[in-house]
């Protein structure tokens, strides 16, 4: 088969490039696997920052205007003797959301998983555009630097919410934040550019470079998810970039795109933001589900139930995701005639996700289930998503949403769905593919401790939040005790804070496990999980060029426990004729 770009035959797998030197091998690499690890490193770094920001927020909510343990060193005017002033709190809620969505979820689920898995799962030697790939991770690294710098400029980092609603975000005097917000806009613009480049790479690679026999309906579901996510991102981010240009001009050039006193429309920002923002949450959700969908069949030793319905549901959800955005805006003052159509589309979009949830459950049904750490996390993805998805239905119905919009109810809803994808799906993927990525096994005991701490304390933090929200506690408020009607709910806030501290500390077993296993973990075999997809036919870790010879694919990815084959798994590239089933 010929290389579709130049028409020539593909080169054989490259010999080990040990002569490239340190910089070309580890820093300026065009190998998709190295780039994936760089994305993972960026995402894990920011995850710690995001978690610390949450700790600060939670302390303020539990014990308003008291000194936060461990943070007495932060200088004025940011914090005062360890106490968080209101302006700093606004920065915390803003940057926690920004960091988690754009610098943790996207780099890990798309940058790391997408880059590592797509070429391997389709039997390709690398991405279609390896140098563009390298550029994309370096643009993200640069974007990270810009965001980090924004913490240290006068006025501090952005403080108008991760959604940066105008006019609060459009005039420096409203938040007291000047260059922090400008740098936030620039950092996001760079982040968008990085993932646009990545998206182009994912789609072109998967369309053009699949191994012979790998038709679209034999693709692993993880690849379908990454591709759908790439399409969603590509087609939705444009209007927000336009909006970001307008916001920057409002802040720096005296324009009034969003400022009402100059003839602008604050609501315009919300529309432009959420037109992107809603598809964006599915960009994050789908790869997390994809990881779970890969793992469930492997550890049930059963084919996935409903492969095609899952694919069609994913595509349907993707299409619908473009016409639900105003459900984030029901009480915003938007034209009331939009409320019913958007409620309708939002309820509709729950259908394809329900199908996927049922398919996951049906996959488990009757399976021969084992519970190594990746499986626990995959099950966690499913369980947590059910709560998140069900609570989404309340939010999606305009009449109900009027009461719970901008309360802790919706905060809990989106943390359930986001954790499902990023935490549980992300960790499922990390534990599952770590052996392939790094050539070592992770420690099972530490993994299980990590899972149970995360699962129990995640629910301890976020389940009570539904009651906080239904009880009337609004989002983003600095001091709940200021409001008489919230004072009786304060014990919940205190409980949540302590649960959050344990949740944060509960990540330590993972950190220890990750670094210890990198150097001292048991060496991994080629296919420790006895799975069917193509990445498990390569060494752990795969060399440059991945495959000695491009594999030929004979079947789909989930042929487990076939009666005709002696093992309970059958790789996609094994050309075995099935044993005849004995008659009678």
């Amino acid at each position, binding site marked *: 088969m010929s290389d579709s770009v130049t*028409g020539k035959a593909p080169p054989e797998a490259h010999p080990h490039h040990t002569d490239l030197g340190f910089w070309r091998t580890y820093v300026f690499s065009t190998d998709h696997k190295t780039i994936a690890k760089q994305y993972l490193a960026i995402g894990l770094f920011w995850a710690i920052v995001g978690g610390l920001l949450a700790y600060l927020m939670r302390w303020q909510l539990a014990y308003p205007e008291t000194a936060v343990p461990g943070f007495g060193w932060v200088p004025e005017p940011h914090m005062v003797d360890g106490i968080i002033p209101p302006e700093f709190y606004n920065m915390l809620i803003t940057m926690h959301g920004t960091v988690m969505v754009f610098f943790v979820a996207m780099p890990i689920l798309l940058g790391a998983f997408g880059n590592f898995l797509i070429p391997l799962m389709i039997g390709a030697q690398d991405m279609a555009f390896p140098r563009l790939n390298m550029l994309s991770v370096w643009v993200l690294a640069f974007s990270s630097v810009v965001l980090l710098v924004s913490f240290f400029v006068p006025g501090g980092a952005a403080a108008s919410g991760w959604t940066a609603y105008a006019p609060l975000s459009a005039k420096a005097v409203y938040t007291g934040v000047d260059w922090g917000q400008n740098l936030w806009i620039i950092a996001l613009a760079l982040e968008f550019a990085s993932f646009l480049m990545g998206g182009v790479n994912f789609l072109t690679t998967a369309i053009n470079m699949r191994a012979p026999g790998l038709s679209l309906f034999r693709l692993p579901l993880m690849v379908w998810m990454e591709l759908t996510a790439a399409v969603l991102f590509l*087609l939705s981010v444009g209007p927000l970039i336009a909006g970001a240009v307008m916001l920057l001009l409002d802040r720096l050039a005296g324009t009034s795109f969003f400022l009402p006193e100059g*003839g602008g429309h604050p609501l315009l920002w919300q*529309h432009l933001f959420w037109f992107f923002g809603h598809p964006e949450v599915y960009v994050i959700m789908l790869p997390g589900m994809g990881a779970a969908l890969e793992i469930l069949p492997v550890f049930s030793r059963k084919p996935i139930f409903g492969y095609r319905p899952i694919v069609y549901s994913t595509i349907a959800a993707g299409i619908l995701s473009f016409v639900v955005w*105003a459900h984030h805006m029901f009480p915003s003052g938007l*034209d009331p005639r*939009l409320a019913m159509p958007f409620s309708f589309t939002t309820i509709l979009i729950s259908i394809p996700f329900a199908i996927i949830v049922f398919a996951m459950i049906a996959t488990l049904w009757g399976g021969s289930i084992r519970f190594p750490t990746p499986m626990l996390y995959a099950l966690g993805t499913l369980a947590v998503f059910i709560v998140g998805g069900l609570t989404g239905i309340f939010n999606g119905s305009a009449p109900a949403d009027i009461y719970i919009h901008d309360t802790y109810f919706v905060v809990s809803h989106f943390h359930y769905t986001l954790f499902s994808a990023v935490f549980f799906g992300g960790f499922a993927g990390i534990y599952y593919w770590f052996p392939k990525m790094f050539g070592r096994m992770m420690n099972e005991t530490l993994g299980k401790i990590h899972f149970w701490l995360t699962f129990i304390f995640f629910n301890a933090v976020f389940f009570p939040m539904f009651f906080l929200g239904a009880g009337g506690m609004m989002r983003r408020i600095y001091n709940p005790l200021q409001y008489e009607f919230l004072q009786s709910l304060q014990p919940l806030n205190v409980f949540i804070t302590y649960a959050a501290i344990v949740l944060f500390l509960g990540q330590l077993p993972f950190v220890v496990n990750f670094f210890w296993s990198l150097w001292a973990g048991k060496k991994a075999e080629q296919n420790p999980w006895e799975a069917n997809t193509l990445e498990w036919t390569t060494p752990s870790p795969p060399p440059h060029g991945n495959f000695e010879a491009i594999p030929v694919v004979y079947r789909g990815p989930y042929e487990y426990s076939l009666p005709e084959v002696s093992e309970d798994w059958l790789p996609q590239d094994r050309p075995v004729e099935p044993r005849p089933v004995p008659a009678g």
Partner: protein
Amino acid sequence: MAGERGHPNYVAVWFWLVGLMVTSVAISQLPFSKSATDVVIFAIAGVKAVLVALNFMHLRFERLLIYSLAIVPLLLFFILTAVLFPDIASH
């Protein structure tokens, strides 16, 4: 790789583009009603864009996938503009 596609008469297309541009400038200067003029000049712009896309970008020789990459984003543009109309286009 590019040989299997044809080459339209690029210079002829250019003449059409220039002619259409001159026409739309002329129409905009004539004393017709504003809304009628607007419809015509944007229709002409649409025709010019289609001419460039089909001929200079060789879209007429491309497969369905490429066509959709041009059409679907346009659809989204129409949806976004239409939905925002009640909120943003009023004053």
